[in-house]
């Protein structure tokens, strides 16, 4: 008998239909992955099982755990089930823990809510669970607070809270999306180990198809609140029936054809750059220490070249980006664009600054919601001494919107009228409008769904053809960097540990860290490609 059986589950929130006739089942010891793009209803399915839906949600159909219906359970009974029979792990480890309570207290709480026992016993149990998830007391005492741990360590605490009572069903909603590849690999291993050890059923929600095909016994593909295809992983990968499933797999390993670049004239020269941050004083009259975020970084970016920068969070990628943009002063070394320094006399050099533009990660937070698109994308004109006016200006706006695949009429709309992918197109239009010599893409496609990401990557390749772009593409996603750059640099702890031709680095990595990164990145199996 299956552990969890969802049958014809339909869900609406304030009349809006969220889920439509969703069915899936999980057996004990089985990993079922629900995948799909944002808005497909995968998280809502998970929350429906927990009965933690937003106010106004009305569900129809059936959700059975061990044969017992959950949908019409009274709230008090659901409270007894949550944490004890169903554990849940969330996406954001940075915010999923209460910042003012120790990790020990938080794990103990799960135990104490459901089982009457003296505090010291609960403490022992909590300690055992924390050891099991890889947080031994000598390194991570239970008196630690969440802010004293890294993202991966916090996710281990969240997992410990979820499995403390060995629930029969564990739900993990994008458990590794916010983590680095190497941490992701560790957390996925931990989850797999727990499933085998405890015989739990795991309902895993993820948009990452490589993770799905690597982990799951069963795959459920969702779109617009419906299940479009489901089946055993091997079988489904070999015989994808639904065009949407095929599109998802194709898009996630989308390759673009970059035009050749021939010029060898250097555009950006970075020599021996060091960026130190002052740390808080440990003692009152002591000189404060420093943290070296960027350590003796040197590289050259030629005109027309597409350079990638990869590394895990905290490795100094973003700091280096800010230094190149002239947003922060560096402590030693030199950054030259077109042979001119980006920082002169403790001030950003405007003459150089106007030759660079940047596209950021978050297509939702990086626009002023009160401005129209025409104003948003013409903002870089403020950097120019003689910005275009009147019809010139309108022509430029129309040209740029056309270049990124939008229409000239979109200039009068506000940003909330656009989807995430369209917003990222607008961000690119904003970066291109002054015809900069250099564009920095800082995780510019990381927040996008795979199908949208594929379109944006195609757009970049087209723009390379049309405008002979030179860019620095910063990303933690190795597969994207592999297809969209000519050369790549690998950064670790503030240093560039390896750089070279992209294909060369990926096929024959020289540095051990590069090898580790590439090995940790989950890959789609060959069979998916063959069938598609």
């Amino acid at each position, binding site marked *: 008998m299956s552990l969890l059986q969802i049958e014809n589950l339909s869900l609406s929130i304030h009349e809006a239909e969220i889920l439509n006739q969703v069915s899936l089942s999980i057996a004990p010891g089985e990993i079922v992955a629900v995948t799909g793009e944002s808005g497909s209803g995968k998280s809502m399915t998970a929350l429906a099982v927990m009965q*933690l839906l937003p106010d106004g949600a009305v569900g129809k159909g059936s959700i059975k755990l061990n044969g017992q219906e959950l949908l019409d359970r009274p709230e008090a009974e659901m*409270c007894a089930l949550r*944490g004890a029979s169903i554990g849940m792990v969330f996406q954001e480890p940075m915010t999923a823990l209460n910042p*003012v309570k120790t990790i020990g*207290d938080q794990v103990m*709480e799960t135990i104490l809510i459901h089982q009457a026992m003296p505090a010291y016993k609960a*403490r022992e149990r909590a300690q055992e669970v924390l050891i099991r998830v890889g947080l031994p007391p000598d390194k991570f005492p239970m008196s630690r*607070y969440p802010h004293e741990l890294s993202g991966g360590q916090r996710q281990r605490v*969240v997992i410990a809270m979820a499995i403390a009572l060995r629930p029969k069903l564990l739900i993990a909603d994008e458990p590794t999306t916010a983590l680095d590849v190497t941490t992701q690999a560790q957390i996925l291993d931990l989850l797999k180990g727990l499933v085998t050890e405890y015989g739990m059923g795991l309902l895993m929600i993820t948009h990452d198809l490589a993770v799905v095909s690597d982990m799951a016994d069963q795959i459920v593909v969702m779109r617009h609140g419906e299940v479009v295809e489901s089946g055993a992983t091997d079988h489904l990968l070999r015989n994808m029936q639904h065009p949407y499933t095929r599109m998802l797999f194709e898009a996630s390993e989308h390759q673009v054809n970059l035009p050749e670049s021939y010029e060898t004239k250097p555009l950006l020269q970075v020599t021996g750059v060091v960026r130190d941050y002052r740390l*808080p004083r440990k003692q009152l009259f002591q000189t404060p220490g420093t943290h070296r975020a960027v350590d003796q970084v040197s590289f050259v970016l030629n005109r027309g070249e597409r350079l990638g920068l990869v590394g895990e969070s905290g490795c100094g990628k973003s700091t280096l980006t800010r230094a190149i943009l002239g947003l922060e002063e560096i402590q030693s070394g030199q950054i030259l664009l077109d042979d001119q320094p980006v920082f002169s006399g403790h001030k950003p050099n405007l003459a150089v600054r106007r030759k660079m533009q940047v596209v950021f990660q978050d297509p939702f937070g990086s626009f002023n919601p009160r401005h129209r698109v025409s104003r948003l994308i013409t903002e870089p004109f403020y950097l120019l001494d003689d910005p275009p006016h009147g019809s010139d200006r309108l022509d430029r706006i129309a040209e740029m919107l056309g270049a990124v695949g939008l229409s000239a009429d979109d200039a009068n709309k506000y940003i909330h009228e656009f989807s995430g992918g369209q917003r990222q197109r607008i961000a690119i239009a904003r970066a291109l409008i002054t015809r900069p010599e250099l564009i920095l893409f800082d995780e510019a496609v990381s927040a996008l769904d795979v199908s949208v990401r594929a379109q944006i990557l195609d757009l970049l390749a087209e723009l390379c053809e049309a405008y002979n772009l030179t860019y620095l593409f910063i990303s933690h996603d190795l597969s994207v960097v592999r297809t969209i750059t000519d050369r790549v640099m690998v950064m670790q702890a503030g240093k560039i540990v390896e750089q070279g031709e992209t294909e060369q680095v990926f096929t024959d990595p020289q540095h051990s860290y590069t090898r580790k990164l590439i090995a940790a990145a989950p890959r789609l199996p060959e069979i998916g490609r063959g069938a598609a």
Partner: protein
Amino acid sequence: MWRWTSRKSRPNVTLMLRYALKRLISLIVSLAVASVVIFAVIEVAPGDPASFMLGVNAQPETLAALRSELGLDVSQTQRYFNWVGGMLSGDFGTSYTYRTPVSQMIADRMWVSLPLALYALTLSTLIAFPAGIYAAARRGRPGDLTVMGATQLGIAVPNFWFAMMLVLIFAINLRWFNAGGFVGWDKGIWAGLHSLTLPAIALALPQAAILARVMRSALLDILGEDFMRTARAKGLSRRQALWRHGVRNALIPVLTIIGLQFSFLLAGSIIIEQVFYLPGLGRLVFQAISARDLIVVESVVMLLVFAVIMVNFLVDLAYAAVDPRLRNRT
């Protein structure tokens, strides 16, 4: 049901001490700066207290003698240090108008104003916390709307109106309390508190309304946090999650407002003091300003500044006790 912290999660003592020391240094610096500013501002105000006291027809010799007696004949720098040195040793100087030691005058008034402020603040907190938590837990439902309506009223209606209503109902009609005046602490602590009750309620109601709103909105922010969802996923009911994980996280903004309210209650209760004929600090300052009794004004203002800075210091310590992330910040 509600444990503040368990044995193991007690704040790290050295970290807390270091934090307290840093706050203490900033407290001393603030006090020094404040004393200079207060002295300078009051000194540059036109009008010589000695000639004001003796009137326009005073003999120059008498004026000079009085100036020397009041310590006005030395340089400004000297006067500043005399003033600060005096205050440090408890000597606030002599009132120009009453010819009595300022320290005595302030001390008498302090015994009314300080208990009144603490009484009002306690009442306001006792009303606001349950009201704010109740409203947040019932967001958008009738209970919430009722509390919000009441707080709207509490903020809009001035406290002297409350004072008058309280006097009408509880003093004149029901005769439970006196309409005004302070019996003094020598009649016993209950008698003293009894005569401060109506003014404390009048002061507390508007403050409670503000505090309840802050508590509610801080809690609502917290309720939207990811860790509250985690708490529910562990099996806590809505109410348990609110108490165990919500309230303490919501305290930071609430503590800030409590600190501000205390400073206001200590000196800002002049209208209420007038309504209830209470010999408090507010009335003292008011009289001293009218009489150009600079030394009293200076001393009371300095004392109030001291109180505000002390309260901020305590609020800072409370922040660190509530939120471990703040302990290793500068």
